[in-house]
């Protein structure tokens, strides 16, 4: 579904990604783990169009989407849940979700009741707080809102950038439970995570990134048993 071929991205003169090649198969959960600064977020941002690639290709459903604008890419069905949630803090929960469906404002005459209901069913707490401004939510609730907002565009590929960041273990469990449910509904997921254990337990396939390169890849179950992964990332 998604192929990234020899992708290189720079910040000024500093190379953040070096010839990254990865795949995300349709209907699978693929995870990218690695230490801080390994380039995981940059990879997702480059796929979503927020950062520009200098070399390489991003192929989605056999279309070249390399360096398209983010607002074009989301229209193609790729939605990124950015690192640190990035909810619109002055707006209500409801408005955040409505903006999530921004790309669909001309289809179905802008009717997004069905998607709203789906998100509220998935995260009942958002339904309780729909009139509250997003800035007043707890970290976990903001993460749920960020995921819900990304789902409102009806993506076929969901990119998640460190959904566990700064959250309590219980909240992390519930977020990952939701990801599993979405996976069962057929959504393809590409997950970047620092918490290697939960990521590999959830995913089908995994990549380990180190200083802008793919250091290791394999079935998630195998990576969990891999000595180097165990020593460095699972501690």
């Amino acid at each position, binding site marked *: 579904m998604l192929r990234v071929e020899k992708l290189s991205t720079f910040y000024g003169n500093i190379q953040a990604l070096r010839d990254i090649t990865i795949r995300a198969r349709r209907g699978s959960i693929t995870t990218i783990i690695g230490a801080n600064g390994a380039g995981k977020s940059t990879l997702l941002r480059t796929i979503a169009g927020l950062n520009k690639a200098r070399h390489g290709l991003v192929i989605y459903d056999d279309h070249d989407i390399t360096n398209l604008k*983010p*607002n074009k890419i989301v229209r193609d069905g790729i939605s990124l849940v950015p690192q640190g949630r990035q909810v*619109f803090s002055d707006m209500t929960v409801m408005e955040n979700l409505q*903006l999530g469906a*921004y790309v669909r404002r001309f289809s179905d005459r802008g009717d997004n009741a069905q998607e709203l209901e789906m998100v509220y069913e998935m995260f009942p707490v958002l339904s309780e707080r729909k009139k509250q401004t997003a800035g007043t939510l707890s970290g976990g609730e903001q993460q749920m809102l960020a995921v819900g907002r990304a789902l409102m565009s009806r993506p076929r590929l969901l990119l998640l950038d460190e959904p566990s960041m700064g959250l309590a273990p219980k909240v992390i469990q519930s977020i990952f439970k939701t990801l599993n449910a979405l996976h069962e509904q057929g959504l393809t997921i590409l997950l970047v995570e620092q918490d290697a254990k939960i990521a590999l337990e959830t995913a089908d396939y995994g990549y380990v990134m180190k200083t802008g390169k793919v250091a290791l890849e394999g079935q998630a179950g195998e990576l969990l048993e891999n000595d180097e992964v165990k020593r460095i990332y699972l501690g």
Partner: protein
Amino acid sequence: MRMGDRNQVRLLWGAAALVAVVVVFTLIYKGSTGLQWILSGLTVGSIYALVAMGFSVIYSSTRVINFAQGEFTMLGGMMMFTLCTRGGLPLWLGFLLTVGIVTLLGAGFERAAIHPLKDQSVITVIIVTIGLAIFIRALAKWIWGTDPVKVASFTGDKPLRFFGASIVPQSLWVFGLTLIAVVLVFAFFNRTLLGKGMRAAADNPDAASLVGVSASTSSLVAWSIAAAVGAAAGAVIAPINFAAYDAGAMLGLKGFSAAVLGGLGSAPGAVVGGLMLGVLEMITAGFAPSGYKDAVAFLILILVLLIRPQGLLGKPADVKV
């Protein structure tokens, strides 16, 4: 809730109280003459408010300060002259056409001069807007000449009496139009998805682009709205003040002062700032030689920038590490 909110309200009441003291003092001391100054102040203040709103709309959507904002107001007045005084069109039709044409011009300027700079720094774009202002002014001088021009009032010139002061009917049009413009702009940003998307882009450009908001569309829409509001202000004030090719610079600076006073980016702030500025200016003109009235705006601008750079209703700029 932001921490500043209670402070902000206190400050707003403080500023309003200060202006109220000045107003009451003027009324007691000067009676109906004072009232006359205040009514004139509210009229000109409404125009400052509309110009300030133009600044705010573009600033809050793109972080650009458009120094050509006053030129849209100048164009509004001149266009009314061409269409109605010269062209003989009915005033209502002239007004609608004026707003329509200047809106298209605003959109055209955005596409021609601002859009190509989308990867440049905000400062570069601001400097280009100064160039744009000079260009528009030169063009206006070439088309209309240097003589101020007169436009007929919408509904006659017979002043209405009001507690011993008089008010021209055109002033009521100015108030009405300001109210309508504020309501429309507010509704656009708070009730429509496009407007909410533009607010989202101002708040968090990355996240907004991820849900599909296009920065390019935001900028185009913001410039169109700013041009429309500016042109409407110019068209409705033209019968009271003479319109002239070089009126834009001063209007722009006054509107900018009003926007800074109210807090750049805040629509209610623009209105509060504009009205305060207009009233203080006219009261100053009454008590002191009228040449000093222009100094009021700049004195306020300097004081605000020194004491409270985010303005009365603005929120402090985020400190990003």
